[in-house]
């Protein structure tokens, strides 16, 4: 939605052709990406498209290829096949130039044992091409982080904060965050969400690999779900919800057995006149019509929760 607002601003200023162009220009684009590690398959034809100004959720079970994709985008490893571009350029051969425009928070943050957190933040920022010291100090305050401690004395959550502050304090166009809130307490997680929301309002693009559903729901404009190295679903959360099933429980006056033949009905459970079922979201109308004919005494329905959505994709047959 915010994406559309941003594009709206574009159209006002430059006209419709710009809208088309802006919508077409992806910050990140991969197609058919493959990567093997010896016998095991890391990526098996992964597609990912992140457009400018959006917060893109990157979801998938452990070991599904999220980190591998990110490391290809960072030019740390080379894909075996398929295409990947970052800002329309080759992430492998133009890594150094591209890295001036992005900041990265790894999933597994290890710090140099004898450097302080403050030193690491400054060092990474300077090597990226400069950091905003005002922003740095504000972030240290917000994340309640003591920058004077040595790397080996930080807890997991605090190491994570060091990496987050280092990334967020840079004025870059793209943030690549690999499970950035792992190990953060709920307060800090809320602070993180606020920061990303601000960055998005500043027009920054964010690729957010995450398992925290509430975080994804709160922040992401679009999500891509990967399984076993392939993209299984990509779109807005509303789109994805639409693809899944709604749960309905109802009490009817007539025998509900005939529901079994209605298209789109799954997991039908009948207990006398009590019915519980799941229905494909695009078939709800037909099912409701049928229920009405059976004489509804009471009815409850709820849309798929995010959990159900993800569980289904994480667990599904390939």
């Amino acid at each position: 939605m915010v994406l559309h607002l941003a594009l709206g601003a574009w159209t006002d200023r430059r006209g419709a052709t710009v809208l088309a162009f802006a919508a077409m220009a992806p910050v990140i684009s991969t197609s058919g990406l493959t990567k093997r590690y010896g016998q095991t398959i890391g990526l098996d034809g992964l597609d990912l498209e992140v457009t400018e100004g959006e917060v893109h959720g990157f979801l998938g079970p452990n070991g599904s290829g999220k980190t591998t994709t990110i490391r290809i985008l960072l030019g740390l490893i080379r894909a075996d096949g398929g295409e990947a571009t970052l800002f329309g350029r080759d992430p492998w051969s133009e890594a150094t130039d591209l890295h001036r425009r992005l900041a990265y928070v790894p999933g597994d943050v290890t710090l140099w044992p004898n450097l302080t957190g403050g030193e690491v933040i400054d060092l990474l920022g300077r090597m990226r091409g400069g950091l905003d010291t005002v922003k740095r100090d504000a972030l240290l305050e917000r994340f309640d982080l003591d920058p004077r401690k040595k790397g080996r004395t930080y807890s997991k959550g605090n190491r994570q904060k060091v990496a987050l502050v280092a990334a967020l304090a840079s004025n870059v166009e793209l943030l690549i965050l690999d499970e950035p809130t792992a190990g953060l307490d709920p307060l800090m997680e809320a602070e993180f969400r606020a920061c990303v929301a601000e960055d998005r309002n500043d027009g920054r693009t964010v690729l957010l690999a995450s398992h925290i559903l509430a975080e994804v729901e709160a922040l992401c404009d679009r999500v891509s779900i990967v399984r076993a190295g392939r993209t299984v679903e990509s779109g807005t959360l509303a789109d994805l919800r639409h693809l899944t099933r709604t749960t309905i429980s109802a009490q009817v006056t007539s025998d509900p057995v005939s529901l079994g033949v209605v298209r789109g009905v799954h997991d039908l459970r009948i207990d006398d006149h009590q019915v519980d079922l799941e229905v494909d979201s695009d078939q709800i109308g037909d099912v409701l019509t049928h229920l009405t004919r059976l004489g509804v005494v009471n009815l409850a329905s709820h849309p798929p929760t995010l959990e159900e959505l993800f569980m289904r994709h994480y667990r599904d047959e390939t």
Partner: protein
Amino acid sequence: MKTLVGTGHLIRLIARRDRFRLPVWIVVLALLVIGTASAFIELYPSEAERLVLAKTIVSNPAIVGFLGPLYDTSFGGLTAWRVGVIGSVLVGIMAALTMIRHTRQEEETGRRELLGATVVGRNAPLTASLIVTVAAGLSIGAFCAAGLIGLGLPRSGSVAFGLGYAAVTAVFAGFSGLAAQLTPGAGSAKGIAVGIVGASFLMRLAGDGGASSGLGWLSWLSPIGWFTRLRPFADERWPVLALSVGLTLLATSGAFWLAGRRDVGAGVVQPRLGPASASPSLRSPFGLAWRLHRSSLLGWTVGLSFIGAVYGSLAESVRGFLGDNPQLREIFEQLGGEAGITEAYFATAMGILALIATAYAVRSALRARVEEESLRADPVLATATPRIRWAGSHLVFAVLGPVLILAVAGVVAGFVYGLNIGDVGGQVPRVVEAAMIQIPAVWVVVGVAVVLFGIAPRYSDAIWGVLVAFFLLGQLGRILQFPQWALNLSPFSHVPALPADELTVTPLVVLASLAVVLLATGLVGFQRRDVDG
């Protein structure tokens, strides 16, 4: 005894984790000893030949200082003299690395907490590590003793030899256990533990080398000196073993005492707060590398300067070393008289310093690999830092570090010697030149390390095997009459023996060019490969 619960499980865990590592140590050391003894038997069967051999090698005091005194010219006596000190240093390093790996390193990585939360007593990890390490030392001793007896050498001498190695292992295992309690970082604990082995070596170097000037007592302060003083195959002095046992008990109790007075993960030395923001110099991969390398560069420079000082101070006594031996006099007259013998001495001494400096260089080159494996390379390479600059900033220390170390050590050695003979201005440049001439050979080894890092990173550690092989070729190759092609494998065999020899530039240019090619190959390989994560 509740603090020891679970020791048995931990012993099995350690044995499982080190199921390749420890057997390699055991086999290599046993082969070193048995191979040396059988070579002596084959190559120098007659007593007369062995006497000539003893006289020629003993005529180089750098080697005597390095290896300790020769007490007996029997096969066993020669073997104990030839590999006693080298083997003691190696088992000492094995003990240090094994102990720290299973104590402090486990704490630093957090695995210790995983174990600590199960039914494992507080003292169990330290106890288990000590037991496994000492058992490895005993196995090395047993294999050596069995092998030597198998070759027909006297039983008591063989047993003394084996027990000598086991005793050295036990003492250094105890001290390493102590070192593991001091610092929170496994790296610095390893540094301290290996440093103790190095200091023991130095003490006996000064003691044995300076025995004629009344420094012999220094050898009695060194656990490595005790091996020599145990005199395997030369009328064994068994009570010396009691010294090792006593010191082991002392160090071990110290380790347990400290372990009981600190938290898991913490050191005895409490961490302090550091600067909240980076100094202006910390802004590039090189700035980072400087922070990571500076203390180790300083440590190695100081350590090698010490050895240089010892060599320098012993050089003068070398001139009187010829004594009344007319044969030796004749040999050294040909080399240029009394000046010739000190020159040969410095050539050997600087060759040994160069090998130690190479260990520093290799360690610095592999620092890039350590950074990569510990996932600290990723965040740096995800900034606008080209790969070559990142790797290069570590290699600067591998390439220029040994130059600095050898230059300082050479200056110190030359200065001390110059003071003694009243010719500082003349001796410093000569000795420094003898040290610097070794640099191209050091660079070749660095080059091989970088090739491994760039092309076969998983096998980077194999460079240590290469370095040990070069070391043994240089140390044992001639005595054991290896073929010339085998000796030529080591880059150090191509370095002219300055200041005794003429300075021939060709081999140096060839070595340096080879090093450049190797470095470039490795860097190109790294540029093209995946960064491990």
